[in-house]
């Protein structure tokens, strides 16, 4: 599963399409690192619309990725989390601490714009 990184305005869009794995996430992080430097992007949006199940392993990988982005000083927003996925994440005892979530792409982008100085 190669995770594509798109760009809209000054924001990077990560669209998760399938199962995440440790090495996917390592590749993604390197890709993001480079792109953030090169494009001076002002924020990252992670789109989970296509994701029907997030188990604790995938939850950890998402959290790690968001944490890395935060360390680079840019805001992250997660959008498209399905209601049923949100419910199971809470029941699993996981949450995405300190990660802003929003309903959809548009609203996520709007939020990122407000974060720009």
């Amino acid at each position: 599963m190669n995770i594509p990184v798109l760009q809209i305005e000054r924001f990077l869009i990560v669209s998760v399409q399938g199962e995440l794995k440790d090495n996917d996430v390592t590749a993604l992080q390197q890709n993001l690192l480079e792109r953030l430097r090169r494009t001076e992007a002002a924020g990252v949006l992670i789109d989970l619309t296509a994701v029907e199940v997030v188990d604790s392993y995938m939850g950890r990988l998402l959290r790690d990725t968001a944490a890395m982005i935060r360390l680079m000083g840019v805001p992250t927003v997660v959008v498209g989390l399905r209601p049923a996925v949100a419910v199971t994440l809470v029941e699993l005892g996981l949450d995405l601490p300190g990660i802003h979530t929003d309903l959809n792409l548009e609203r996520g982008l709007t939020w990122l714009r407000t974060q720009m100085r």
Partner: protein
Amino acid sequence: MAENANALVGDTASLSINIQGRDEMVIVTARGAARELSRELGFGIVDQTRVATAISEIIRNVVQYASEGEVQFRVIEENGQPGLEMVVVDQGPGIADVERVLRGGYSTGNGFGRGISGARTLMDDFELQSEVGRGTRVWMRKWLR
């Protein structure tokens, strides 16, 4: 409801689905099977997701710690209430401290240690048996409300 259950239960056919491949291929295959079966059984979207997530946790452990295993799906009925039973068995290394794993937060890998305890919360009935050097058996049920 009893009538409805009658329509769902019954062993008229049996199929063995074998999948060999990378861990994530095996996990998604089992998850797709569980989700579609629970959907057909009439589970709502949240319960479908709970079942799919629980099987995902348990199968991920199987592929990670034992590398091969077996799942049994069965449509069940108790007092007129239909449900889904899933039994996952492996002949892997087994778990030394089952109590600790059930409490959650304990991981020998680099996980959250929330797989087994999480699956237990997501399902209605849950039992974990394990013996070091022999293997692990997880029994789970979810009832249709």
